[in-house]
């Protein structure tokens, strides 16, 4: 198994990750045709204010727009925020607590109606009325949000979001300065929808948007169709460029093996799921011109419960970090082409990331080899030797192999370890709930937007921990006074001096890494396997492949 993966990975190294320059001119000769995408299954509700999956966030990019957007450019250009339905990014006033957006005129929804101030105000209320997953997180900084979260049905955001029809502006007041607010406005949960959109989860009924496409049909068991929005006119190449294919047909239901076959046979233009490892060799050699590999700003990590023995002991946690052979894990994931070892929280390429690796043979910037001797010694010193430890992993091939590997490492350094794989759909909520008494588990985190707090504060902030709840993303239950104060400092500084704030985030990263509430495992990479006819592939760091920026003829 391992050998096969390695062979596949070696073959993939040949594959190119070509990047075309950002902002290429629109080439009318490629316009038209039907692009067919395939995925194992649908990703839930189509409501852009509720759906919280990368699968749909990727395609929302050419359907819904917010006041701001992440730039539709290749690579890290995607981390840049640009104005979208707002004419420009407003400067903050009132100590960073007030933003006034001038709303673009002449933009139409796919049902032909104009985007008005009313729509914008209503859309912000709707975030709370439909209990969007991030309403209590991202948008709780808006004035009046507390009342809206408590009683969603009567949400008005009084004093928080107010429109001025005459001036064509919308003013948003925050309870505190939030340097990440522009990012938060750019994610699909803040999409602007018509004011009369029902204030319940739209589910499988498509809602009107403002992008170059609209959803013309959706059946979660069969597929999703995107057609051209006849009312679309380009208002910003950066925020909302026009697309090439006339129709994008997204079909659900094939297994990953069948998806690979379909792309190879030219029956599909792209597969959403990652190709199975046994096909990587073939893909990397025979189809190397059709593969794109990109590093993700994400991590695989093993959170350790800091409120439960043995990992309530700092030395025990550090021991695990020293003992893990990250190279072995990378190989389990598919080899160096598909992952890179990591021993800190912030992924490479992320704001505030400065290479740091204390848990290796020769501590420094890079991980080189595990230090088993040191680990054994730390376990000895901690007095936790011989304790029982259960590793909870997802019941998938990769996660299970990682779990079994962790078991062997834990055994080697002196614990009585076992692995418990559970269904992938339960595992993520199961490991969060303190009632389940999970000691160590394997999980992943993908960024929502490019800000250091999206890893550090979300995963290790005191406010992300809720006892006895399935939604307690601080899986390690980590709450450290010093770290918390530092994060507060960083937040406070970010509004005025983002560069200095990022320096503090770098320190926070080190502090968290040193106190080891989790064992960082590796940074995953992403494979896009496309059909022969697909042209102009561009990978955006924020929302991945820009679907409609590619052409099929």
């Amino acid at each position, binding site marked *: 198994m391992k050998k096969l993966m390695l062979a596949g990975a070696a073959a993939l190294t040949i594959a190119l990750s070509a990047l075309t320059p950002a902002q290429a001119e629109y080439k009318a000769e490629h316009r038209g045709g039907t692009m067919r995408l395939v995925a194992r299954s649908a990703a839930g509700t189509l409501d852009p204010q509720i759906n*919280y999956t990368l699968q749909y966030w990727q395609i929302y990019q050419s359907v819904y727009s917010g006041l701001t957007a992440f730039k539709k450019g290749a690579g890290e250009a995607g981390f840049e925020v640009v104005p979208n339905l707002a004419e420009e990014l407003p400067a903050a006033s009132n100590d960073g607590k007030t933003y006034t957006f001038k709303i673009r005129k002449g933009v139409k929804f796919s049902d032909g109606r104009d985007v008005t101030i009313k729509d914008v105000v209503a859309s912000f209320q709707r975030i709370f009325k439909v209990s969007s997953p991030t309403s*209590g997180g991202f948008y709780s900084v808006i004035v009046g949000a507390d009342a809206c979260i408590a009683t969603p049905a009567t949400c008005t955001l009084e004093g928080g979001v107010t429109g001025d029809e005459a001036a064509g502006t919308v003013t948003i007041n925050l309870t505190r300065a939030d340097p990440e607010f522009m990012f938060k406005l750019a994610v699909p949960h803040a999409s602007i929808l018509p004011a009369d959109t029902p204030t319940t*989860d739209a589910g*499988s009924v498509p809602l009107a948007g403002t992008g170059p496409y609209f959803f013309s049909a959706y059946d979660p*068991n069969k597929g999703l169709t995107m057609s051209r929005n006849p009312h679309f006119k380009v208002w910003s190449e950066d925020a909302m460029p026009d697309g090439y294919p006339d129709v994008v047909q997204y079909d659900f239901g*094939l297994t990953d093996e069948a998806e690979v076959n379909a792309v190879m046979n030219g029956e599909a233009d792209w597969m959403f799921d990652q190709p199975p490892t046994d096909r990587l060799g073939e893909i990397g050699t025979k189809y190397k011109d059709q593969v794109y590999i990109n590093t993700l700003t994400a991590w695989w990590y093993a959170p350790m419960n800091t409120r439960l023995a043995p990992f309530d002991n700092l030395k025990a946690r550090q021991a695990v970090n020293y003992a893990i052979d990250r190279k072995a894990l990378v190989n389990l994931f598919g080899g160096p082409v598909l992952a890179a070892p990591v021993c800190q929280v912030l992924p490479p390429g992320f704001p505030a990331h400065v290479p740091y690796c204390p848990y290796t043979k020769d501590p420094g910037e890079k991980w080189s080899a595990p230090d088993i001797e040191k680990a054994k010694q730390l376990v000895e010193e901690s007095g936790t030797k011989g304790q029982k430890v259960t590793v909870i992993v997802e019941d998938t091939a990769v996660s299970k192999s990682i779990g079994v590997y962790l078991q062997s490492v834990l055994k080697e350094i002196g614990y009585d370890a076992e692995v418990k794989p559970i269904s992938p759909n*339960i*595992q*993520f909520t199961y490991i969060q709930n303190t009632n389940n008494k999970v000691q160590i588990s394997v999980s992943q985190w993908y960024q929502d937007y490019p800000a250091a707090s999206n890893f550090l504060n979300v995963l290790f902030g005191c406010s992300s921990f809720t006892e006895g709840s399935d*939604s307690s993303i601080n899986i390690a239950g980590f709450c450290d006074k010093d770290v918390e104060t530092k994060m507060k400092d960083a937040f406070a500084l970010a509004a005025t001096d983002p560069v200095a704030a990022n320096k503090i985030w770098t320190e926070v990263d080190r502090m968290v890494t040193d106190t080891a509430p989790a064992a960082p495992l590796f940074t995953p990479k992403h494979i896009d396997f496309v059909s022969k006819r697909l042209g102009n592939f561009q990978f955006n760091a924020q929302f991945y492949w820009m679907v409609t920026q590619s052409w099929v003829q």
Partner: protein
Amino acid sequence: MIFSLLQRIGQMLFVMFGISLLVFLIFFATPGADPAARIAGRNASPEVLEAVRKSFGFDQPMYVQYLTMMKKIFITGDLTSFVNRGWKVVPAVMDTIPVTLSLVFGAAILWVVFALIIGIVAAATRGSWIDKILMMLGLIGISMPVYWLGEVMNLLTQSRYHDTWLFSWVPPLGYKNFSDDPKGWFLTLVIPWITLSILYIGLYGRVLRAAIVESLQEDYIRTARAKGLSETRILLRHALRTSLVAFVTLFGLDFGALVGGSALLTEVVFGLQGVGKLTYDALLNLDLPIIMTTVLYASFFVVMANAVVDILYMMLDPRVRTA
């Protein structure tokens, strides 16, 4: 007659009630199965989690949740999925039935025809090398797991030999509606039909042969021989007819179960959006409303198929009629 019909309906309701209760209780007894957090989305704040819990009625007592779900399935028909929110479950299941029926009917025709041929030929030539080869092939057919066979078929027809004359006619995986494209419907289903039926051809062929061989020892066959009937007539009119009782029993059960969703592995491998695949996806996602609906639907079909089998018995075997 009316009494036995009522009895049947009573049995069916009882079975369906028992199964639905079991599915419901198992779901909520599973640790970590609480759907609220998964519905709310990752990193939802406690208040949002509470709002979702309330809007889906998870804060109600269990029996109320159960009754609400039953009401939404049978009376209002507006039960929606926990995973693909807003997706109405009953129409979704209804949509998948034609796919499963197309798959299972086609496969059933194949397996009945070929099993009859194999069973009769093997029984007629019992002991000879033809019999031995047929039985051996049957055993091989039974031993091949259907998902493995399906993947191999896919490997051959969709990948390795897709561009050769042999399999270039095989369309991409997925289902095409009969009404839109009859030819496409047929072509996409040929490989799945063969895959699904191979196991049953082997099984039924072997069962039929054994039954015929056994009934050839019966007294009435000796009587028929004594009357001077030809061997062919004895085999086809007398021995085969009673032997079909076992065949039909098996067929009823298998057919019912397959229509009810047991063809799920075949459906998954070939990307056919049938009842089985719907159930499979729902199980992966722990989507209780869909699991509940498809399980009820399946139990309905199994009970129905059994009733039909009982009636067929009476037609086939005169001894059952008087009993």
